[in-house]
């Protein structure tokens, strides 16, 4: 355990984020250990998705730093492409490219970022789609898939370049409890079998307790990170009423 803890793959220091003049988050610092699943939780409007946007290079912080696998994000733009290959992102709605088939969606990052032959790319696409249980859907367009299938296809695409880190934006959003549970199980299986690091934005406790090794709680009023720990330790020991409230309310609804 100690050896793992001493090896953070993501480091966020004194992060301050804003949309124009509207400050969203301030003084956010945390680390994510390699092979861990960190869940970012909090109520609506607390800045979870904003934090994710910044961590995946879509929103430049006004202050602070983000270090992914030893490379500083936003500091040196020449790292841009290299860092992009370090992680995959699963957006809330899957964000599949609608004009392309599922096969093309997964194949595109491979064809643009690798020198692999077409045949190898094809094999890889089949493999990635089979990992998420979508074999046979290669020639479907995103519009022909259900919400859960879109997310799984998005996951296959996020896995395309064998990233070490995966970011998820509310994977359970808009899914029924059974599909949501399947997606959680898939995350756990991938984490165990591929040893990947996960950062998951979520406010659904059932999902959080299923997948999280560690969790941070963002507070909308204070606009900062309020507490961190395992979901169970936060529930049992957190001194912050908001955290306990959040976990209790959700837990009771989960139960």
């Amino acid at each position, binding site marked *: 355990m100690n050896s793992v803890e001493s090896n953070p793959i993501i480091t966020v220091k004194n992060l301050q984020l804003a949309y*124009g*003049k509207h400050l969203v988050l301030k003084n956010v610092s945390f680390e994510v250990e390699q092979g861990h699943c960190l869940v970012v939780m909090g109520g609506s409007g607390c800045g979870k998705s904003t934090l994710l*946007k910044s961590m*995946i*290079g*879509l929103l430049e912080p006004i202050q602070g730093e983000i270090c992914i696998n030893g490379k500083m994000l936003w500091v040196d733009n020449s790292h*841009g*492409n290299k*860092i*992009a*290959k370090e*992680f*995959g*992102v699963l*957006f*809330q*709605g899957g*964000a*599949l*490219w*609608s004009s392309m088939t599922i096969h093309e969606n997964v194949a*595109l*990052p491979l064809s*643009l*970022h690798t020198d692999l032959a077409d045949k190898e790319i094809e094999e890889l696409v089949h493999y990635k789609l089979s990992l998420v249980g979508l074999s046979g859907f290669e020639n479907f367009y995103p519009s022909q898939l259900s919400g859960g299938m879109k997310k799984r296809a*998005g996951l296959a*695409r996020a896995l395309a*370049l064998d990233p070490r880190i995966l970011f998820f934006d509310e994977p359970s959003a808009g899914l029924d409890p059974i599909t949501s549970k399947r997606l959680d199980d898939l995350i756990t299986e991938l984490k165990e079998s591929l040893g990947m690091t996960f950062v998951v934005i979520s406010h659904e406790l059932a999902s959080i307790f299923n997948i999280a090794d560690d969790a941070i709680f963002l507070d909308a009023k204070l606009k900062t990170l309020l507490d961190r720990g395992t979901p169970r330790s936060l529930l049992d020991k957190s001194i912050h009423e908001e955290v306990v409230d959040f976990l209790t309310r959700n837990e009771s609804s989960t139960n």
Partner: protein
Amino acid sequence: MENKSHNDGVEKTAMSIPGLEWKHERGELFITLSGRWLLSCPERQQVLRKWQSLIKQARDIEIFHISCTEDVIWDSSLVIFIRNVMGEFELNKKRATLGYLPDGLPKLLEISKERKTTKDKNEHEGLAENFDNFTADLPNYFARPIEFIGAVIIACTELVSGKSVMRLGDLVESARKCGASALPIVTLISFLTGLTLAFVGSVQLEKFNAKIYVADLVSLAMVREMGALMVGIIMAGRTGASFAAELGNMKLNEEIDSLRTFGISPISFLVLPRTLALFLMTPLLTLYADIVGILGGLTVGTLVMNFSTVHYLEQTQSALTHMWEIYSGVTKSLVFGLIIGLVGCYKGMNSGPDSAALGKSVTSAVVVSITCIIVADALFEMIFSYLELR
């Protein structure tokens, strides 16, 4: 929804109009509301007028007490009335107290008061804030388009140096969509334009017994001006709008964000093939429109004005002896294509986060494109005229 006090009897609900009574006591005004305070009661307006005259008479009174009778039947109209009255008192620094009010009404007043305060605050702050945001954003209105054009230029240099992520297939597909697929509408509009020019010209030229010059008029007007302009306007409405909608929708669905996370430049991957396709297709469509427009003129010339086809075409040929006439239209169309492509893509890429904003972007793309095309056309004519190319 009608609300009735708990204790009202059936016979009391027969009161069919809103009631407003008052009495003076020791310099204080006691107001009692009764009857049917319903939005569906037209008599409410009379009561409101009565209230206005009362409040004018009671200018010197400092303390007001408002209450309802137990049998009052009410809906939102009563809430609004009391809310407005209390607001007026507060504004005029008068003391006002609420006496008996039917169940539920005090809570509604409390909630709506809170909301009103918040809204008022936002309205006042909003004005200043909007102005503040506008001035702060002012440089962005100019900087963003320049930044966008800069990014497109960089993407073009990457394309030339072979480092671009643009796919040839996307360029071909975009060219098909904005080129070949536009042929039917371009044919129709150009043919009708040529036809109309011929009809208008024939009437005027007949007066000078110079009807055959209708061939000159149609051909020169089409190749110099109308071909490029009509194709530009069609492309702005058809393709420019489609680019804005397509890219705006991709932005809405986070597809553009997902491209960025893979280190794929949306400018190279999405904007470049579309803009290049339009840049290449517009001149071809313009040449095609020129020919179809001339054919429209030929139709009038042969069928209405009884010229022979050969005679008309020979006259057309003699009018177009200088190839520059054709080149000038094609040169314009190259710029028009570029304008439509860039404006459509820019509006799509900078579309807002909801479907209403998307609609606005599409409309804006068409309006801005057409305006820019007409401005560019005027500039071209001024330059050609200055350089004595006409």
